């Protein structure tokens, strides 16, 4: 028989063993291709509005992360492969006993690895191609983009990268495999499956004490992080992290003994059907692999946290975008005759907008930042040492401002004739303005004494901006501006407008941006530009977070699955025994199902609890910098977790069932 035939037969024969290996390989390839390809796809270009720089940055960042990801996946695949080799040592031993040379056995193994690698690479890339299209659509939906111009495409660069990466990983696997056959003595190969079954028993009293202590410490850390996050000192925060990590390990170390004691205490439940057996199996699983389980739990926690924060940043950006871009364009023209300027460059307002507003902004010598800050100027100077406090802030008539409010869909302001209001959305400065207003700081404009009309800064913007760091303006009653002599010049003219349609809008933007010399005469901000900027940044964040998170989950689930599978080789004989005792097929299947499920659930449950408190902390933090709830992010991340983790769970259950032979 040719080596190739033997290899093919072997793969068919050990389908059950190969399932998790295959699943991991295919998933790995698919994820790798998906994230590398998505950056160069049409929809992403559209997301970043053909700004090549951001697309390039995206591709570069994802490429960088991919190096780390390839490393993790490589280790994972080698780990999975070692499980397969261990399981088949006896088979190789028999080949060699029958007179096959070690090099021939290696050759068979080589061919097997190649076939499996080839099939999984092809399957993974196919899934990846479909997946990357879906990912594009999801992104488009996430950031409310239209899907016209969406087309099916394949990224040759990503394809090449995926193939190169995985061929490298396979070559490493091949070297490992060949070595593992050659370095083993025949006796070891033959006796491989007679290794004593592992049973680890721990002192129950120690376990109970340690478990309770660990849990108490964890609860302390959870409560601290979750409820007192805002007031926590740096040291306590670090303490929480250390306690969280250490206690996760001790919790898993002691959980087996604790659960065993707890369950065997409840005699009625414990001694029903196969319950005692299942509990013993489960606690033995935890006892033999407490370290890896704790590690998995921590990694899952990180993945969950990544997901939920990543997505909440996304929903924050969407919400903020909606509020900060109420019109298509705001133009500031620094000339007294704006119409003359617009006519000169060939875009009179009427030609491109039917829904617009023209507002003059005035200048007054008395309206410096220093005057508005009043007694707060000392504190402000300490904070911003290089600031020029004599800079003049523009002023707007109350009636004009209320027309802007109407256009933006906001509430009008109300001021008496001896009152003023500060409009500013620059948080760092606002605290000082607010201080001044609280002190009742009055300003003197053309001989009129004006007092604050509102008890805080009006945190709104006049000109759109991506950063929300507008220096703002002062709103004064109409009479003060129109009659005062200290208000002389027109600082600038604002045009706030919605386009007739997208094409005319684009044309206008092109004209305005076409000549660098216009920069002194006009400043314009478009909602298109703002969206572009914030979307491309968040798209990058969301993708990196998704990428790393998904790889973490895959790694955790795969390690857990392989652990369960190699354990099930040990427990096969135990299941045989309970069959002999009289446990029927269905009850044995149920026992196995519960055993595998508990192993998968235990680390996940702890990770979810960790994440609930951790996310609370992060949410408080996000709220303090103005972001909103993380609800949707958590829901989406749960879904992703469920699909990957659940897939692994089912594959593992099926694999165990085949190995045990139920």
């Amino acid at each position, binding site marked *: 028989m040719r080596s190739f035939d033997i290899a093919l037969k072997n793969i068919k024969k050990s389908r059950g063993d190969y399932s998790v290996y295959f699943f991991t390989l295919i998933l790995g390839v698919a994820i790798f291709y998906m994230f590398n390809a998505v950056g160069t796809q049409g929809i992403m270009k559209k997301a970043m509005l053909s700004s090549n720089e951001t697309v390039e940055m995206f591709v570069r960042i994802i490429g960088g992360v991919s190096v780390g990801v390839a490393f993790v996946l490589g280790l994972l695949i080698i780990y999975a492969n070692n499980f397969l080799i261990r399981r088949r040592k006896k088979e190789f031993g028999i080949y060699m006993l029958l007179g096959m040379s070690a090099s021939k056995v290696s050759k068979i193994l080589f061919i097997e690895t190649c076939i499996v690698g080839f099939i999984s690479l092809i399957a993974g890339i196919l899934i990846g191609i479909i997946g990357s299209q879906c990912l594009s659509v999801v992104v488009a939906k996430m950031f409310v983009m239209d899907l016209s111009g969406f087309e099916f495409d394949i990224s040759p660069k990503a394809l090449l990268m995926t193939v190169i990466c995985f061929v490298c990983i396979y070559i490493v696997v091949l070297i490992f495999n060949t070595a593992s056959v050659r370095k083993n003595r025949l006796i070891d190969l033959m006796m491989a499956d007679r290794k004593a*079954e592992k*049973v680890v*028993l721990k002192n129950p009293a120690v376990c109970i004490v340690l478990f309770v202590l660990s849990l108490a410490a964890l609860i302390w850390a959870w409560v601290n992080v979750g409820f007192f996050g805002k007031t926590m000192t740096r040291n306590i925060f670090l303490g929480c992290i250390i306690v969280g990590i250490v206690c996760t390990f001790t919790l898993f170390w002691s959980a087996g003994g604790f659960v065993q004691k707890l369950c065997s205490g409840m*005699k*009625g439940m414990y*001694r*029903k*059907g*196969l*319950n*005692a*057996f299942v509990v*013993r*199996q489960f606690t*033995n699983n935890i006892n033999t692999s407490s370290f890896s389980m704790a590690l998995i739990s921590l990694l899952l926690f990180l993945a969950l946290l990544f997901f939920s924060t990543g997505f909440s940043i996304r929903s924050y950006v969407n919400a903020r975008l909606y509020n900060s871009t109420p019109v298509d364009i705001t133009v500031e023209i620094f000339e007294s005759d704006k119409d003359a300027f617009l006519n000169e460059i060939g875009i009179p307002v009427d030609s491109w907008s039917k829904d617009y507003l023209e507002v003059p902004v005035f200048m007054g010598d008395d309206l410096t930042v220093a005057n508005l800050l009043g007694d707060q100027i000392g504190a402000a100077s300490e904070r911003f040492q290089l600031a020029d406090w004599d800079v003049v802030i523009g002023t707007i008539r109350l009636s004009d401002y209320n027309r802007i409010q109407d256009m933006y869909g906001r509430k009008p302001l109300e001021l008496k004739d001896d009152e003023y209001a500060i409009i500013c959305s620059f948080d760092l400065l606002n605290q000082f303005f607010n201080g001044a207003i609280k002190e009742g700081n009055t300003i003197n404009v053309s001989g009129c004494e004006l007092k604050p009309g509102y008890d805080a800064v009006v945190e709104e913007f006049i000109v759109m901006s991506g950063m929300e760091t507008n220096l703002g303006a002062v709103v004064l009653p109409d009479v003060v501006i129109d009659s005062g002599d200290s208000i002389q010049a027109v600082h600038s003219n604002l045009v706030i407008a919605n386009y007739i349609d997208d094409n005319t809008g684009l044309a206008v933007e092109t004209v305005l941006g076409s000549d660098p010399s216009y920069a002194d005469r006009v400043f314009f901000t478009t909602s298109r530009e703002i969206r572009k900027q914030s979307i491309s940044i968040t798209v990058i964040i969301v993708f990196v977070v998704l990428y790393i998170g998904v790889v973490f989950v895959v790694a955790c689930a795969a390690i857990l699955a392989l652990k369960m599978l190699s354990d099930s080789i040990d427990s096969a*004989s*135990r299941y*045989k*025994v*309970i069959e*002999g*005792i*009289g*446990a*029927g*097929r*269905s*009850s044995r299947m149920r026992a196995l199902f519960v055993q595998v499920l508990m192993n998968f659930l235990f680390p996940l449950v702890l990770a979810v609890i960790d994440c609930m408190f951790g996310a609370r902390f992060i949410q408080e933090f996000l709220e303090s910098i103005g972001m909103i709830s993380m609800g949707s992010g958590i829901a989406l991340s749960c879904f992703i977790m469920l699909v990957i983790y659940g897939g692994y769970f089912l594959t593992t259950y099926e694999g165990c069932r085949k190995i045990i032979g139920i």
Partner: protein
Amino acid sequence: MSVILDVQNAEKYYGNKGNISAALNDLSFTVSEGEFVGIMGASGSGKTTLLNCISTIDTLSAGRVLIRDKNVAILKGKELDRFRAECLGFIFQDFNLLDTMTARENIALALSVRGEDVKKADEKIADIAKLLGIEDVLDKFPYEMSGGQKQRVAAARAVVTDPELVLADEPTGALDSKSSKALMESLGKLNTERHSTILMVTHDTFSASYAGRILFIKDGKIFTEIVKDENETRKDFFRRIVDVTTVLGGELDEIV
């Protein structure tokens, strides 16, 4: 006394067309309630095949196995599971105790899979442990016990459910002579005091001498059968067994 096991014209063939070898060749016997029957024979004589067919692990090519007048071959799925749970108890050469559970839990599991009440189960476990002298090791794990203790725990687990028939496959195979003796005495006790019906496969003459009747199998057929007389000592019975095994080992006229 009623018949528990009735093997009728059992035949078992291995291989395919043109190359058939018979492991069981028209073999018939019965076991009555309360009997302790030993089956002896050389390696390859068909002992294990016979035991597998009785215990429903394997099926016969022809003939029938009736347990309490029920044909085990036609049982399937849940019915088969229930039958195995209710009618049969197994003792294996390599103990087959669950290494993750204590002796008590091992025995209790046999009862709990049958849905036995916890309180009743505890009583039963206490009784059987006392009979087999394993009270001290009840809360120990298999790795803390000697081979003999393990096998007695296995025996306890096999009989605690009061099965119609206890099948023992080389129960002393992995034990030293002292443990073997203790175990066989235990099995004898189970037979005399609990009236368990035991069918034991062995090729150890000493172990076989504890049985009440011995079937000798050769080439898939019953070669002969000897029954212990009521007044016969075990020593005498042992001698008769040795005699038969000598003959069984090879007939003089086969040597050319």
